[in-house]
């Protein structure tokens, strides 16, 4: 059978690496696991579930306290008739300013800052706030006049939101639309108002050409501004375009409502001008006349222009600030057992609301649970509250993970307001029957395993290292390592110039044979012929000497 050894070897190597990797990961995870479980779970003493809170029915204010974060005016908390209440303070109001200018002269005239030239005549009289102006090729081509009225809000608007607003302003006017005949002099200056829809009728009788880009017009307007006139907004206007038309003749504009900005913009402008001192703002009415020079000797006769009335109305509601929260809190006892482990902590309470929560204004406002300032993952949306008490959570909230050992267990039940919105009336959220039931066991402390763990870690790492070294290197005898090294070099096409210092065949055989005959303890006899000869010579010399002595 022919084996594909290369494939088998690769597979085996993969398996070895898998095991080394596995042991390496294991050697890291095991000590971590041990470090995290240094207490042996021996249940020496189990506590029955204990009601951890006092005065859970709010029979009095004892044990409970509250706090409000954010705008403190947004909420009031009290305990009343066995319930803990969170009252969100709502309020509303309507402001109206109406001026019948045919009767109300309590306005201060002023110039238009951009067009400081006044018209010929301006006053408030029975016709209202009136202007008349005759221009005849003079410098007073563009004139204007304003009347101002300072207004004061009945409340400080800093904590209110304007929720609706409307403005009505009525104006009228009479002009000379067609040329007049000047019996006493030149007919050059006709006095007629020229508008773009005039088709040359007002042109100079002597034959001059009509000149015009806008035509003559008057712009009635209503401004609001802060008291310092830093922010000025035009909130209504009416600009004529055909008053003074010759054919068909239009020389009178009956009582006409000015065009008002959209309500949202009006609210924004009102909020802006009231944001300075939250109390005062200015309303201004005005008229600006533009006498376009339409031909070389033009004249325009604005007979009587008037603003008859102004009516500004807006409603406001109490502003509830985003992230305002109000909490009922109780500081409970601590679990002072050093080796306790909480097995269960269930929080139960009931809640209700006296009015349906305005979900469209603040959909994410909710009741939150905190234990020692740590939030529980579940919350109760206020939109779910009803007018009668209901369980916040069927079976209660499992808050065991939030229970700290060795510290007072502080419970906070918090109403959290998630949006800024206007609240026009008070809404009260109430809670009752707040119970926190905690069970815990006391564990026997395990001996300090740190050294053992470190030792074990070191041991395992050493073992893995040794195992890896063994598997990859030392498992193979030196001679096989040389074979592997040579093979790898050849496989990777590296040079193998250096001879391998290794026993040749004769050396191997000789070594093997020498090992075999060791058992005989063979010691070759020392060869000492010269020494023996010397000894023999000495002996002979001694014998000769002795013989000589005897002979003597």
């Amino acid at each position: 059978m022919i084996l594909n050894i290369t494939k088998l070897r690769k597979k085996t190597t993969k398996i070895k690496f898998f095991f080394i990797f596995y042991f390496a990961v294991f050697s890291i995870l095991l000590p971590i696991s041990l470090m995290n479980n240094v207490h042996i779970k021996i249940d020496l003493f189990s506590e029955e579930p204990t009601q951890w809170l006092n005065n859970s029915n709010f029979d009095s204010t004892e044990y409970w306290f509250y706090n409000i974060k954010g705008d403190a005016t947004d909420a009031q908390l009290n305990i009343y008739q066995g319930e803990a209440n969170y009252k969100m303070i709502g309020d509303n109001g309507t402001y109206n300013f109406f001026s019948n200018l045919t009767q109300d002269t309590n306005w201060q005239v002023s110039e238009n800052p951009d067009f400081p030239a006044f018209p010929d005549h301006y006053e408030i009289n029975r016709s209202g706030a009136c202007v008349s102006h005759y221009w005849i090729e003079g410098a007073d081509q563009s004139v204007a006049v304003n009347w101002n009225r300072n207004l004061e809000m009945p409340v400080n608007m800093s904590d209110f939101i304007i929720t609706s607003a409307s403005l009505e302003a009525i104006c009228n006017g009479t002009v000379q639309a067609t040329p007049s005949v000047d019996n006493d002099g030149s007919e050059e200056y006709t006095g007629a108002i020229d508008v773009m829809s005039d088709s040359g009728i007002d042109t100079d009788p002597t034959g001059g050409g009509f000149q015009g880009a806008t035509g003559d017009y008057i712009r009635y307007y209503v401004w609001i501004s802060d008291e310092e006139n830093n922010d000025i907004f035009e909130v209504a206007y009416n600009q004529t375009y055909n008053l003074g038309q010759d054919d068909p003749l239009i020389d009178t504009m009956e009582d006409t409502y000015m065009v008002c900005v959209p309500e949202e913009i009006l609210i924004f402008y009102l909020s802006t001008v009231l944001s300075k001192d939250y109390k005062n703002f200015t309303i201004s009415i005005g008229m600006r006349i533009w006498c376009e020079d339409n031909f070389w000797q033009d004249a325009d006769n604005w007979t009587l222009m008037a603003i008859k009335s102004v009516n500004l109305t807006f409603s406001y509601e109490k502003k509830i600030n985003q992230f305002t929260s109000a909490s009922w809190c109780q500081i409970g006892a601590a679990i002072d057992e050093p080796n306790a482990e909480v097995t269960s902590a269930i929080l139960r309470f009931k809640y209700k609301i006296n009015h349906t929560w305005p979900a469209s204004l603040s959909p994410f406002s909710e009741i939150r649970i905190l234990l020692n300032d740590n939030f529980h993952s579940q919350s109760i949306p206020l939109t779910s509250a009803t007018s009668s008490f209901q369980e916040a959570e069927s079976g209660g909230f499992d808050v065991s993970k939030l229970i700290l050992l060795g510290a007072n267990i502080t419970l906070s039940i918090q109403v959290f307001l998630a949006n800024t919105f206007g609240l026009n009336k008070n809404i009260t959220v109430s809670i009752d029957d707040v119970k926190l039931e905690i069970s815990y066991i006391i564990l026997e402390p395990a001996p300090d395993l740190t050294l053992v763990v470190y030792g074990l870690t070191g041991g395992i790492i050493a073992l893995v290292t040794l195992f890896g070294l063994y598997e990859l290197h030392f498992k193979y005898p030196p001679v096989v390592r040389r074979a592997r090294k040579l093979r790898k070099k050849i496989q990777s096409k590296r040079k193998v110039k250096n001879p391998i210092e290794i026993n040749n065949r004769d050396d191997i055989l000789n070594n093997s044979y020498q090992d075999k005959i060791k058992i005989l303890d063979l010691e070759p006899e020392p060869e000492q012929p010269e020494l023996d000869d010397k000894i023999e010579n000495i002996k002979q010399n001694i014998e000769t000497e002795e013989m000589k002595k005897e002979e003597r």
Partner: protein
Amino acid sequence: MPKGFIITRWTEDEGLVLYLNYPKDIPVDLDDMMRVFYAHITGAGEAGNVLVRLEKAQCNVASYFTGLEHEFPLMINLMLELGEDPDMFGEAILRQINQSILNYVMKYGSNITQAYDAMEKLKAYLKNALFLLERLKNLTKEQLLAQIYSNKKKRVILNILQNGPMSKKDLRNKIEDSLNVIISNIDTTLDPFIKTNLVKQDWIEGLSEIFLFLINDFTIIRTPPEKIVKDAKKNSPTSELAGKYLEKVKEFFLHYEPDNKDSLKIAQIMMNPDKYDFLSLFRARPYPMTKIPKGEGSTFTSTESLIQAMVSDNILTLIPDSRNIDWVFLLCDITSETFYPEYLLEIIRKLYINKQIKNEVVIKHLEFLENAYVK
């Protein structure tokens, strides 16, 4: 197992005639014998061995012919099964058997008065020879190694593979060129190498040949009989005998130098089943000459003559005790040990550098060597 012997004689008058068949019931087809004879005489008709496959008789014939010039031209045919090869018995054994048969024939063949007895003795010899050959089929590993060593063709294979891997085809050509023989079935020749795990054969991806890789080497040498020496050091069997024995062993190994000639000689001793039995017997303990257990395989010769032969080969030695009874001691053991051919690493490296073999072959051989190492 071998089927038997058919001995034929060539005469100029009668041609090829049957001289003896053993056992009696072995069929003799003279046409087949002529085919074998032709195989011998094709060419110079000199003495030598041939292996012929007889399809009709469904057997192989390992035949030895004395040559036409011989004074008694004789063809000794060992009839084998189809799957059997004479190599499995070792050429030395077969040569010895053939020579013995020839000796019997030459000694008695011409003496008519002794012909009957001679024929009976020859038959007895043939009986024992068949028994011997049967025993040679079930060799131990060390005998298999000895068989490899004692076979010239296999020694050449070993020498070739000791110098690097080679394809089966190239090996066959090289042997045929160097020994001037035809290898009919190289796989049969390589079989003992594979069985003894000396050689691995494998395909190389991308090459169309099977390559042979030496992964273990071996030699046969004399070594001191470990157990007997240890026992002797403990004065066993007696302090007197033990002392004398240790002296003799030390004396022998002090002057013993392993060489190829002696290795070949002791390999043939290993191949002789009777001698191998004695070798195994005396490895365990020495025996007084008078109490040597009779082995089941005493085929040819008497115990005494076998022991004398092994004494003269310096395998056994006789040491008289105080009562002048000779004790038979194992003077030297015959060790045929395999060893890891680490020297091949340098040989392979040189072959690779000189680009004498392909990279794939080098890598395959190194992989085999990595896996072949046994501590």
